[in-house]
């Protein structure tokens, strides 16, 4: 014969078990696990930083004057571009060592043949090809062909695109 004693205790036990299961489920589910797919969030933050750096460099210090970025491109001064970009990219509000971000810059331009070419415009070191880099760009108008640029650079006033790869080194 099946004993039907203590049925309320059984029900209470089941209810308690349900409460515990629910709690464990919620606690376990609340923690967020950083998966490889989430890495694009930090990539996007890097993009925001890079775009800000280019924006600052492309902003003239006085009205109707040319920006530093235009100056560097017009004179093809990759050295000063590197220095300026590095200091803006790596500076921190706190004391202590600078950030460890690395970058490589390129300039894309419309060639005499009507195609788009890309030429290097300074970087802060070598690359292995395995960097998890993001790319930020900015359009710049330059009055003519800068010195020491490839031969298919047009002589006329034109718009070029500065592209910078940024990664955490």
């Amino acid at each position, binding site marked *: 014969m099946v004993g*039907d*004693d*203590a049925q*309320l205790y059984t029900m*209470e036990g089941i*209810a308690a078990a349900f*409460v515990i299961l*629910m*709690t464990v489920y*919620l*606690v376990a*589910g*609340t923690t*967020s696990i950083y998966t490889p797919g*989430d890495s694009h*969030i930090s990539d*996007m*933050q890097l*993009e*925001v930083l890079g*775009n800000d750096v280019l*924006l600052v460099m492309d902003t003239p210090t006085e009205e*109707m004057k040319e920006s530093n970025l235009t100056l560097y491109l017009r004179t093809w001064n990759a050295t000063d571009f590197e220095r300026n970009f590095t200091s803006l990219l790596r500076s921190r509000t706190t004391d202590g060592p600078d950030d460890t971000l690395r970058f490589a810059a390129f300039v*894309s*331009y*419309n060639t005499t043949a009507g195609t*788009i070419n*890309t030429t290097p415009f300074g970087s802060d070191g070598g690359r292995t090809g395995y960097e998890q880099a993001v790319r*930020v*760009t*900015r*359009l*710049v*108008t330059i009055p003519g062909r800068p010195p020491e640029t490839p031969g298919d650079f047009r002589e*006329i*006033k*034109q*718009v*070029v*695109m500065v*592209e910078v790869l940024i990664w955490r080194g």
Partner: protein
Amino acid sequence: MARLDDDGQWIVMMGFLVAVSIFFLALVINQATLVGQTTAEGVLEFPKSDIRDFTEEVHTLVDTGDVYNSTINETLRRDIIALEEARKNTIVNYSVQQVDISGKTYNETIYHFNNGVTVYDATVHY
């Protein structure tokens, strides 16, 4: 048969009610991280910088007289369109014309931006 102790049923019921309300609060906390993450992603994924770069460059061209009196500098326009398409996979276009509004002449700039995910159109009188 064992005697069922039916004392304190109110206490048991209140216990359950408290447990259920704590579950509800836990559920809110449980969703908070997910909601925060998706919101932040949505904000970051919008190509704000790309759109601003394009419109600012065109605006600078308009402002410095490269595009004026309805004569767009066609070379610069083609440069911008070609560069955005080749290097950013983005279709852009713009046109400028002078319009008279309330007796004043404005440059009416129409921007078009489409990177496959975000479409942005704007008309600016300046």
